[in-house]
């Protein structure tokens, strides 16, 4: 019988990718709409984009390892046929938010 499971890191970092992509898009809207947030982000590293990228990458790593360590170290489980649409939705919706924001709202 064919093996249909993937490693716990595949699931956890797949979910982390979807989640941190969405937070990437939310952070774009928040910092562009709030000069105070953008100034605070700039003051942290000298450039708002460096802080932005560092936050998203830290969220990706944090969520990935956190979800992998859940359930007593066995990691969160999700069938691959649900992981793929979750990951796709995260990337497509985030991309649409970013493109839509700069195209229409900003």
């Amino acid at each position, binding site marked *: 019988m064919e093996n249909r499971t993937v490693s716990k890191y595949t699931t956890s970092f797949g979910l982390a990718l979807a989640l941190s992509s969405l937070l990437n898009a939310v952070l774009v809207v928040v910092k562009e709409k709030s000069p105070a947030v953008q100034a605070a982000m700039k003051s942290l590293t000298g450039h708002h*984009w460096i802080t932005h990228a560092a936050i998203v990458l830290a969220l990706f790593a944090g969520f990935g390892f956190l979800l992998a360590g859940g359930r007593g170290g066995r990691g969160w489980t999700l069938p691959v046929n649900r992981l793929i649409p979750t*990951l796709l939705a995260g990337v497509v919706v985030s991309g649409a938010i970013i*493109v839509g924001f700069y195209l229409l709202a900003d």
Partner: protein
Amino acid sequence: MKEIILMTHVAFGVGCVLAAVWVFVDTLNASAANLKRIQWVSRAAAVFMWLSFLVGGYWYVVFYPADKTIILKGPWPFAHEYFMETKEHLVIMLLLLATYLPVAAANPLAANRDARRLVLWVAALIPLLGLMIEGHGAVIAMGVKVALLAKQI
């Protein structure tokens, strides 16, 4: 030097796109024979993307403000207002996808159809997003060019 840094950024980005296409094609024909190669090329995609991101990030922070001023005074201000603003944030998602690719490719792909489907989706997203971002870069470069040309006339 500035131009070499910029072209290195683009070249590493192209390397990532080509590596992801390679992973996609090899995964369509995954077997015990090409499993190691898929894993190595997926790691190469991630390394290329990280190099492109770091070099491009350095260029963006250090050199781009001068280009931005030129673009905004020229006939194509949208090259910054839409294309650069979008590119600098979409590229973070591309970095996450390229970093995730070797994680997904570490599964036993030859014996696991679901893992193969996952790798195919991730490997397909990278060139789609990557080519879109490369196109954005071309528009930004053109934004500088038309602004300088308009100044000369």
